[in-house]
C-alpha cells in the first residue's frame, strides 16, 4: 500500500453515524405521518364520497323494459305488435382484437362501414367496462344461426334478444298509425332519460307519437350487485316491476283501409273516411306508402335516401299534411253560406253563358264546359243545378255577391283553415284566406277577383283531405260538429281539443235539405245529357243506396286567358288533382269521406269510382255494418 496507514477515528465516526441514523429515522417517521394523513383524508374525511362511489360500482340499477302498448283496429285486429328481435353485441373487454372481430363478423353476416361507425360511436358513450354494445340489429334466422354457431371462435360476441315494435300490416297502416324510431341525440336531449332507460325507441309519427306517454308504460327497476365484468352476483337486492303501456283501440277499420288502398291501386292519392256520428276516422290511406318496420331498428342510408328523395314522396302523409285547392267540392259550403245569409235564394236562377266577368274588368272567368267558339254554359241555372252540374258561373256570381268576409265567417264553422284533428300530430290547418291574411302575408289589399276564385275553390284557399272529410261529416250531420279522431278506446283521460268548433246552428232545415239534396243529385240524377248529375254516368247507374257527393278538380298549373284546357298537352305531373267527397246513406249517414287522386284529372270521372268502391265495401257488407254500430256504441259510452 502506497498510502500510509491512517487509523480511523472510530468513536467520531459512530457519532456521525448516530446523528445521521436519528435524522433518517425522523424522516421515516415523517413519511409515516404523511401516509397516515393520506389514509385519514381518504378514509375519514372523504369516506362518504368513496362509499357512494363504491356502491355505485357494486350496485347496478338495471332497468326493466315495459312492454309498449299494443294498437288494435276497431275489430280487434292487431296494427302494432311487439316481437323479439335479435341483435349482435360486442363486449370490448372480452375481445382480443376489436377490428379483427368486426372483420370476422362482416365476413359472416355483412356489416356496412356506416354500421361500424355508429357502433364505434355507441362504444365511446359506454358508462363502464364490460358493457356490451350492439353492432347489428334485427338478425334474420339465418344470420342468427351463423353468429350462434361461430360464437365460440369470437369471444366477446353475443346475440341478445329484445322486444321491438312490429307493424304486421306494414305499408297499409303506415300513414294511419305512424311509427316508432330509435331514440336519436335530439330526442335524448328532450326526453326524461329515466323514463326511457328501458327502451331504445320512441313514437316519432302519428298515433305512436301522440299517445307516446300512454303507450310507453312505466319502466321498472332491479338493483343487483355486480362484479367489474357486469356479472350479477346472487339475487336482486330489490325490484320494481315495469308497468306495461296502455293498449289502444282505434276507429280504423282494417278491411275498409284495405278496400280504400285497393281502390287507389298504384295511383298517388289519399282516402280519408270518417264516421259522422263519432268523428272516428275509419280509413286514412295515403299512397304511395312505406314499410314502417324499416325505421324501427334503424334504416340503412341508401334505402332511406331512396324513400326520402323519391319524386312520389312516400314518407309524406298526403291525408293530413298535403294541402290542395278544394276545387268544386267547396260549392255546397258556399251555396249554404249564400242561403243562410240571404244572398242566394232557392228559386233564383241565372243565365250561364259559359263565362263570367267582373264589372270594369276584362278578365274572363270560364266555366268548365266553356269552348272557344262561345258555345257551352249551363243555360238557366239555380243553386240546386249549380251544385249537381257543378256550374262555375253561378258560384262566381254568388261569391262576388257574398264577399270574402261572409265566406270566411261561414266556412270557418266547418273547420276550413283550422286544424281540428285531435290525435293526428302532423295534421295541417289548410288556408282559408281573408282580408287580414292577405294584408298580413302579402301586404296587399283584397281584390274582388280573389273572391271570384274562392267561389269555385281555386286561388289561395287550401285544404287537407282530412279537413275536407271532416267538413263533409259536419254537413252529413246537418251541423252537428264531430272532431276527427283516431282513438276509439284505451286511454282514460279526456283528450285535449286543439280548437273546438261550435255546432253549426241557425241553419234552417230547408237549407240542409236543398244542399244535401243537390249533392244527392250529383250521384243519382239521371235526366239526360246536360241534366245528369256530374257523377251519375260513372257511379250512379247501379248504386244500391243513396249517396250524397260532390266532385272537384284542383288546378295544378294556371291556364292562360282565352285558352282552352287541353289535357293532352299537359304532362302527367301537371294534370289536375281529382277530388270526390261523399257521405252515405243520405237519410242516416254512417260514413263521410274525401278522395283525392293526385294529377288524376276530372273529379267525377276519376275520383268518384274510388269513393263508390269504399262506400260499397262499407255499406254492403253486413259484418262491417254491425261492427260499425258496435263501435259507435262503445264511443258513446
Amino acid at each position, binding site marked *: 500500500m502506497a498510502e500510509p496507514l491512517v487509523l*480511523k477515528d472510530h468513536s467520531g465516526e459512530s457519532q456521525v453515524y448516530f446523528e445521521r*441514523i436519528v435524522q433518517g*429515522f425522523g424522516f421515516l*417517521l415523517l413519511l409515516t405521518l*404523511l401516509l397516515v394523513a393520506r*389514509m385519514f383524508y381518504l378514509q375519514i374525511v372523504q369516506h362518504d364520497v368513496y362509499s357512494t362511489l*363504491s*356502491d355505485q360500482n357494486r350496485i347496478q340499477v338495471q332497468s326493466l323494459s315495459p312492454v309498449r302498448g299494443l294498437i288494435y283496429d276497431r275489430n280487434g285486429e292487431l296494427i302494432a305488435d311487439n316481437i323479439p328481435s335479435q341483435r349482435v353485441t360486442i363486449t370490448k373487454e372480452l375481445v382480443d382484437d376489436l377490428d379483427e372481430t368486426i372483420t370476422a363478423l362482416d365476413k359472416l353476416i355483412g356489416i356496412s362501414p356506416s354500421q361500424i361507425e355508429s357502433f364505434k360511436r355507441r362504444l365511446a358513450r359506454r358508462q363502464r367496462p364490460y358493457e356490451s354494445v350492439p353492432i347489428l340489429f334485427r338478425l334474420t334466422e339465418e344470420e342468427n344461426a351463423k353468429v350462434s354457431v361461430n360464437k365460440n371462435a369470437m369471444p366477446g360476441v353475443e346475440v341478445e334478444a329484445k322486444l321491438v315494435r312490429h307493424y304486421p300490416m306494414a305499408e297499409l297502416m303506415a300513414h294511419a298509425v305512424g311509427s316508432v324510431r330509435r331514440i336519436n341525440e335530439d330526442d335524448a336531449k328532450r326526453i326524461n332519460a329515466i323514463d326511457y332507460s328501458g327502451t331504445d325507441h320512441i313514437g316519432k309519427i302519428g298515433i305512436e307519437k301522440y299517445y307516446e306517454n300512454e303507450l310507453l308504460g312505466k319502466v321498472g327497476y332491479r338493483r343487483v350487485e355486480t*362484479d367489474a365484468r357486469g356479472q350479477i352476483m346472487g339475487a336482486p337486492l330489490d325490484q320494481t316491476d315495469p308497468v306495461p303501456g296502455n293498449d289502444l283501440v282505434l276507429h280504423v277499420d282494417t278491411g275498409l283501409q284495405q278496400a280504400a288502398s285497393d281502390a287507389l291501386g298504384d295511383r298517388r292519392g289519399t282516402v280519408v273516411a270518417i264516421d259522422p256520428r263519432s268523428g272516428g276516422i275509419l280509413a286514412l290511406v295515403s299512397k304511395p306508402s312505406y314499410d314502417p318496420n324499416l325505421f324501427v331498428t334503424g334504416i340503412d342510408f341508401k334505402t332511406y335516401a331512396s324513400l326520402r328523395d323519391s319524386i312520389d314522396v312516400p314518407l309524406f302523409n298526403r291525408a293530413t299534411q298535403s294541402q290542395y285547392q278544394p276545387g268544386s267540392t267547396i260549392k255546397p259550403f258556399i251555396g249554404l253560406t249564400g242561403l243562410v245569409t240571404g244572398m242566394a235564394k232557392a228559386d233564383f236562377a241565372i243565365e250561364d253563358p259559359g263565362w263570367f266577368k267582373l264589372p270594369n274588368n276584362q278578365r274572363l272567368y270560364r266555366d268548365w264546359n266553356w269552348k272557344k267558339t262561345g258555345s257551352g254554359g249551363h243555360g238557366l241555372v239555380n243553386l240546386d243545378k249549380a251544385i249537381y252540374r257543378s256550374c262555375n258561373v253561378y258560384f262566381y256570381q254568388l261569391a262576388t255577391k257574398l264577399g270574402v268576409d261572409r265566406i270566411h265567417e261561414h266556412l270557418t264553422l266547418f273547420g276550413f283553415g283550422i286544424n281540428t284533428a285531435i290525435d293526428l300530430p302532423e295534421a295541417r290547418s289548410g288556408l282559408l284566406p281573408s282580408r287580414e291574411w292577405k294584408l298580413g302575408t302579402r301586404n296587399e289589399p283584397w281584390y274582388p277577383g280573389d273572391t271570384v276564385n274562392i267561389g269555385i275553390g281555386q286561388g289561395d284557399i287550401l285544404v287537407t283531405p282530412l279537413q275536407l272529410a271532416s267538413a263533409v261529416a259536419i254537413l252529413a250531420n246537418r251541423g252537428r260538429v264531430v272532431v276527427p279522431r283516431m282513438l276509439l278506446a284505451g286511454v282514460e283521460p279526456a283528450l285535449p281539443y286543439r280548437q273546438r268548433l261550435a255546432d253549426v246552428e241557425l241553419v234552417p232545415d230547408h237549407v240542409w235539405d236543398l244542399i244535401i239534396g243537390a249533392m244527392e243529385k250529383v250521384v243519382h240524377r239521371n235526366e239526360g245529357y246536360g241534366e245528369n248529375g256530374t257523377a251519375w254516368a260513372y257511379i250512379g247507374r247501379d248504386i244500391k243506396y243513396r249517396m250524397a257527393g260532390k266532385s272537384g278538380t284542383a288546378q295544378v298549373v294556371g291556364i292562360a286567358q282565352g285558352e282552352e284546357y287541353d289535357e293532352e298537352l299537359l304532362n302527367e305531373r301537371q294534370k289536375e288533382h281529382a277530388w270526390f267527397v261523399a257521405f252515405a246513406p243520405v237519410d242516416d249517414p254512417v260514413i263521410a269521406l274525401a278522395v283525392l287522386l293526385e294529377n288524376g284529372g276530372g273529379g267525377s270521372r276519376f275520383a268518384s269510382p274510388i269513393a263508390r268502391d269504399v262506400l260499397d265495401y262499407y255499406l254492403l257488407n253486413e259484418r262491417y255494418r254491425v261492427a260499425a254500430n258496435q263501435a259507435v256504441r262503445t264511443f258513446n259510452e
Partner: protein
Amino acid sequence: MSEDFVRRLPDAGFAYRVRDSGSSVFHLDVQMILLLVAIASYGLLILYSAVGQESAPVTAQSAKIGIAFVIMVAMAQISPIFYLRIAPWVFLIGVIMLVLVMFFGTTVNGSQRWLRIPAIFSFQPSEIMKLMVPMILAWYFHDRHLPPRMKHLFWAAVMIAVPVLLIARQPDLGTALIIGASGLLVLFLAGISWRYMVTVIGAAVVSSPALWFVLRDYQQGRILTFLNPERDPLGDGWNIIQSKTAIGSGGLFGKGLGEGTQSHLEFLPESQTDFIIAVLAEELGLVGVMGLLILYLLIAGRGVMISIQAQDTFGRLLAGSITFTFFIYVFINIGMVSGIVPVVGVPLPLVSYGGTSIITLFAGFGIIMSIYSHRRITL
C-alpha cells in the same frame, strides 16, 4: 486479508463472542423474528381474504415465507467478515448478469428482466442488486475516512449508477429508482455533507423535465394518470380510482374481513399483489392500516437499533441502509395505492403475494441479524 481486518479493529484481542442469550447461539434476533412473524401472519390473513378465502394460495405463500425464513437463518449464520470479503465479487457477478440479461434475458410484459438457465431456474438479477448496492458501498466506505471525500463520492456514484442504468433500461424504472435510493441512503448514513445532498437532489429535480423525454409511452402515461386519474377512467386511471375508492369506502373500521366489495367483485386490480393494502384498508379500515404501519415502524426501529450497536462501518452502513430501503418500499407501495406517488410496480413488503421479493427481504434481515449477533463485546 482477514488477518489485516481483524488487526485493524480497535479492540481486537479484548473481545469475545456474545453468548448472553440463547438466541445468539443461533445468531438470531428474537425481537426482530417476532415482529417478522407478526407482520407475515397479518399479511397472510389479508391475502386469505384477498384471494377469496381459498387456502391454496395462502399455503403456497406460507411455503415461500418458510423458504425465505430458512434463507434468513442461513444468512444470519455467516459472519459479516465473510460478507465484507465477498462483497466486490458478488457485486461484479451481479453487474455481469445484468449485462447478460440485456442480451439473453427473457422478456415478460415488454421488459427484459429475467435470466433463465433452462431446466434449472430463472431469476431477476436486479433482485440481487437490491442487497448488493448497499453492500458494495458499505464495503467501499468501510476502510475509508468518513465523511467521504469528493474522490470517494465519485467512485461511489459509479457503483450506484452502473446497476441503476442497466436496470432502468430493461425497463424497470421502479426497481432502478429504489436501488438508486438505497445507494444514496448509504451515502447519507456515511455522513456526506448536507451541501452535497442538496446539490444532488436539486440537480435531480431540475433535470426531471428532461427525463420526461427518455420515458417510454406507458411510463409517461402512468405519470399523467397519477396527476389526473380521470384522464382515462376506463384505462390507466381505472386502477388508481378503484384503489382510492376501496380505501376511502373502508372508513375507520372497514367493511369487515372478507366483506370488501371492491376487491371481491374484482373492481380492484392486482388485489393480491401490488394493491393488497387497498384490500386491508377496505376491510379493516384506518385502524387496520395503522396496525400494519406500526408493525413496519417497529421493524424499522429494531433495524435502526441494531445498526447503532454495530461495531464497524460496514455493519452500520449495511444494517442502516437495508432497514431504510425496506421502509421506502412500504412508503412507495402505500403511497402509490393511495394516489400520492405515481404507480410503479413495487410490492408491499412481506404482505404482497409473490416469492422473489420476500426472499430478498428475508435475506436482508438475515444479514442484519448476522451483524447483530456477531458483535464482540468489550469487557
